[in-house]
């Protein structure tokens, strides 16, 4: 099996796929920290479907799917951001409507695509083995931007994740941080359409963060554990798919779930958290 893997690694498409797995795992898992700690999985799922719908639109209009996916993501972020700040409407309902609308739009686009639908299906499931050099370059730039964002604004990010309202009240530019996060989510999701696809990426936007939540109370360690879990899921999923001839996107997601399950089972936090449950009762949400 080792020989088989070594041989595979000498092949340029596999090399590109491994690099993409590391970048995809790192970028999605860093975002998953925000998605999990700020409790915004619906925003994550809506953004991933916005990227998917935009990319299908790109195929229809014969423009770069990454570019069109990114533009639609930015539009979605522009709608979702103010929406989540509203206190007079339930954002969950509107997010649900938006998510299903974008999904409908994507399938409509796929339905009226006159030429082969393989490209659109690749956007849905991803295709690690058919990545181009420019896909990798885009992914590298966006992952680097995200890592810099986290490193440079760590204390602001911690403050915003703890409570947006408290962050705002103490002079933190919380809106700028929050909107930057939404835009980076759009960029990461769009850039990863070619790797794990617009449907499966949602798993990577939640599971690495949920894995880290089981294991640490330290936010720096949280980011590192999430990144390790995400990269581990992507790389091991790729190798499993190669060895057993399975769809790569699905293998990655199933590995991410397996890593989460292992973390949940060994979690030292679950037991100690039971005593903390009392703190969450009879309280008002100020976030």
């Amino acid at each position, binding site marked *: 099996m080792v020989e088989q893997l070594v041989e595979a690694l000498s092949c340029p498409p596999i090399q590109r796929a491994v690099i993409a797995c590391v970048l995809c795992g790192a970028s999605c898992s860093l975002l998953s920290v925000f998605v999990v700690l700020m409790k915004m999985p619906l925003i994550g799922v809506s953004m991933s479907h916005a990227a998917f719908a935009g990319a299908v639109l790109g195929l229809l209009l014969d423009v770069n799917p990454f570019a069109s996916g990114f533009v639609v993501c930015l539009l979605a972020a522009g709608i979702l951001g103010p929406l989540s700040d509203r206190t007079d409407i339930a954002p969950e309902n509107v997010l649900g409507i938006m998510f299903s609308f974008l999904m409908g739009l994507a399938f409509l686009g796929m339905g009226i695509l006159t030429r082969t639908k393989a490209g659109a299906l690749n956007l849905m499931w991803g295709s690690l083995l058919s990545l181009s050099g420019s896909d990798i370059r885009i992914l590298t730039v966006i992952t680097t931007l995200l890592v810099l964002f986290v490193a440079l604004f760590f204390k602001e990010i911690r403050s915003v994740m703890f409570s947006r309202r408290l962050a705002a009240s103490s002079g933190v530019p919380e809106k700028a941080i929050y909107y930057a996060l939404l835009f980076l989510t759009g960029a990461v999701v769009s850039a990863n359409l070619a790797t794990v696809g617009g449907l499966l990426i949602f798993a990577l936007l939640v599971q690495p963060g949920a894995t880290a939540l089981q294991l640490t109370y330290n936010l720096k360690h949280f980011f590192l554990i999430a990144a390790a879990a995400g990269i581990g899921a992507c790389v091991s999923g790729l190798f499993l798919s190669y060895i057993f001839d399975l769809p790569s996107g699905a293998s990655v997601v199933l590995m991410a779930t397996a890593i989460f399950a292992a973390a949940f089972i060994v979690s030292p936090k679950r037991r100690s958290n039971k005593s903390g449950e009392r*703190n*969450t009762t009879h309280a008002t949400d100020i976030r």
Partner: protein
Amino acid sequence: MTDAILELEEITVRKSETLLLDGISLTVSRNEFVGLIGPNGAGKTTLLNVIAGFEPFQGSFRLFGQRETGKRSRASRLRVGYVPQLFPLDPAFPINALEAVLTGLVGRLGLFRSPGGKEKEKAMNLMEMMRVDRLAGRPLGQLSGGERQKVSLARAIIQQPEILLMDEPTASLDSAVQKEVLNLIDEIHRRESLTILFVTHDFTMIPSAMKRAVLLDRGAKVFDGDVDTALSGDSLSRLFRYPLETFEHNGRRFVSYG
């Protein structure tokens, strides 16, 4: 020349068809401790949110002599501290008590500067004042409600505000812990010479430093004056539309339902 640092004139807040605040006018001077008291739905928290810069409003609002609009500047935010009600926090959330206190300094430090030894020492001193210094390394979500509110007070003070806004900081706490938190609030007022606006619906749990009370009912101001008159049986009976009598024993106010 006036030492008023907060001047509200005809502040109105409307959400859809509902009038939440109906032309509230209020002036607060430096170092005053003012209670905003009223039943549920009176508009207390909405008024506090306007002052904190969280709520759009109509009317005229001057803070530290500057006219405020919907958008609050960073400089202005730094001068206003905020202590919310106890809010739900995942016990697994990755932040400890000391880190939570230090989040109050993030805005003041500005971008690209992390809290160093001096800031951590200051945070520990405040935590000692709040009697939670031994909990500095504990995950915040695993502290009791009272301990979390003490951390919240330290977080607000480390910001070095000039006005402290408190939105029912003792709600959801048991009576003994409520009293302990109220004593700390009195101590903060005395030591830091802060102007404090304190929202509560529980008129039996009032900090002793509070000398002035503003009673709100259905979005309107119905009384503004000394706290003893505000919390008399007649006044509260009118406010809560229920016959109430109050009496004091050992410095605590008790209520008798008629």
